[in-house]
């Protein structure tokens, strides 16, 4: 795996794309679930809101684990005004971790906002 080291292993950049991808997947799944549940009339058996809540909790858990990874492996810090100006590998990693953490916070907020309509509208 040495050839793709930077893609999937140490200092890999996928950690930047992952949080927002989770949000996109959560968004899409929520729409699919709403469309299918309402079209098939499954809301009586299993509440659509329960499924959405499950999806939201799962998405938040994955985002939280990504944030943990960004903190541990990349030494990222959730400080908005952090200035990383060095050009070493360690600085690069710290920068990736920092951006990944910020994106994880944004994705978590976006996931919660996607879930809000289910809380307000109780039916299909």
């Amino acid at each position: 795996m040495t050839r793709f080291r930077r893609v999937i292993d140490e200092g890999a950049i996928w950690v930047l794309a992952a949080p927002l991808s989770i949000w996109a997947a959560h968004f899409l799944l929520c729409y699919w679930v709403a469309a299918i549940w309402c079209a098939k009339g499954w809301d009586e058996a299993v509440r659509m809101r329960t499924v959405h809540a499950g999806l939201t909790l799962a998405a938040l858990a994955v985002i939280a684990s990504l944030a943990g990874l960004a903190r541990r492996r990349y030494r990222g810090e959730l400080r908005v005004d952090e200035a990383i100006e060095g050009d070493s590998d360690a600085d690069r990693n710290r920068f990736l971790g920092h951006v990944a953490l910020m994106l994880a916070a944004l994705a978590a907020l976006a996931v919660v906002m996607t879930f809000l309509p289910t809380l307000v509208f109780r039916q299909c």
Partner: protein
Amino acid sequence: MIAGRRVHFGFPAAARRRCARIAAPLTLLALAACDTPTSMLAGAGRDAVLVERLFWIMLSAAALIWVLVNGIAFYAARTEANPERERVARLFVVWCGMIVPTVVLVALLVGGMLLLRDMRGPRPDFQVTIDGEQYWWRVGYDTPAGRVVTANEIRLPAGRTVGLALASTGVIHSFWAPALGGKMDLIPGRTNRMTLTPLEPGRWGGNCAEFCGTAHAQMRFEVEVMPAPDFDRWLAAEAASARVASDAGLAVFTSAGCGACHAVRGTGNAGTTGPDLTHLASRRTMAAGILPLDRDTLAAWIRDPAALKPGALMPAFPDLKDDAMQPLLDFLTGLK
């Protein structure tokens, strides 16, 4: 910004005066539009009142934010950089650039959704079906005695909630009476539902709000909101068969083939392609709300509908002689 240098936002006095001269009449013109039958600020229906409230809240908030942001930008441009206050500036960015906008956006989202839930909430007292045609509206009232069909003029009782079932056979239309409430598309192959609760008696306007073909802009309608007892009387009269004022006119109507497209209940003419004409003369307008309903306009319409409404699908009858046209007009204008 370069320390010590000031930026001037001032415009020359002449330019300011010129702007004011142009802006003042435009503002008056815009405000004058708020009181028309098609204004969403007329507040003639429960939903329109809810939307109007949200509009004013959002407008005031947007104005406040605009003044604050521009005030701060103005201040920032006129003040000098001070490195000792960088910490305050960072806190300012975090709070005003991230936390406050997030809270405001979430509040707006939740507020908007709660409003939408309120608008979908009430259980309708009765049902009206509206079918979008090219380019007019078929209106059907479901009564215990059956469906009463009319066209282009919708009468509703004040204070009662009506459930609208919106459908279309050909293309997508959109039903919107801004003074009364929200807008809903009519989509072929499905029935969309919305409710309206008119509050203010009067005549309110509406238009197709989704481009549907050549005469889209001439696909209007009127909603007459009446006191509930008056509405009940009107609906009972509307359910009755047609009153034939001219037998000769009815003969022309039937022999010219008008009944293939138009229904006049009680006369054997039962076409459904065009608007139901059973109580045509009780309407104020024709051709989907774009023309006054009178003898001359009716005659011109029958001779060449597309000349009055480009794109109208009714065929022209240019060869109808005056001795046939006059009884036909007697018949049509007698359909009270």
